[in-house]
């Protein structure tokens, strides 16, 4: 596998992984806040 393809694979995985983690955490905190606000 070439350098370009390997770096692309690595970068893509990290970005997608980071995206999922980040937005999962954001949605969690939104749900907690909504629970606090509306009970």
């Amino acid at each position, binding site marked *: 596998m070439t*350098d*370009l*393809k*390997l*770096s*692309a*694979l*690595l*970068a*893509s*995985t*990290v*970005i*997608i992984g*980071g*995206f999922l983690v*980040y*937005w999962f955490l954001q949605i969690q905190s939104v749900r907690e806040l909504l629970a606090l606000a509306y009970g």
Partner: protein
Amino acid sequence: MAPPFPRTLMVLALIGLGYGLAVTELYLRLWIALLPVFEWMETTPVGAIGKTWGAAFAVIEAFHLLGLALLGGAVFMADGRLLGLCFTEIPQRWLEDQLHRLFMAGLWVLLITGVFMACAVAVKIYYLPVYWYKMLALATGIIFALYIRRPLLQQDVESMSPWLRRLVALSSLMIWFTVAATGRWIGFS
């Protein structure tokens, strides 16, 4: 003599750097060191104009959105082509080159209007975590687009594994969505 796999090593180094800064909490030291910069930004003529005339700030912000539209159009079409969803009869590399020009035009508009706006509200955004998430996403997006995605697509895309193509297209869409969404979030803070 250059090391083997230079790009991969660079990506690994960046990931390591990010991870290291995070777990050692050195990023906080960096953040503290940046406060004088942000305080200075508000004193610049650009910052003064944005603070004094809300209308000027609003017009610049509108152009920020228009730049985002241009970048968005280019990204959607480029990644759509990569996923094989549109314009499949047009050679990938040629379309990439064309859309890259539009992407860069949009990016420049975003960066210039963004700096203008940041100067006007510098200290406020300095204390907003979501601003820093946006800057992180933006840096990631720019490095990914220019250093990884574009060089990769200069090569023979047709022989590339469809899964790699999908991964690249998906990460491109996800990162720019995150930049846009965190940007809007700043507006709500």
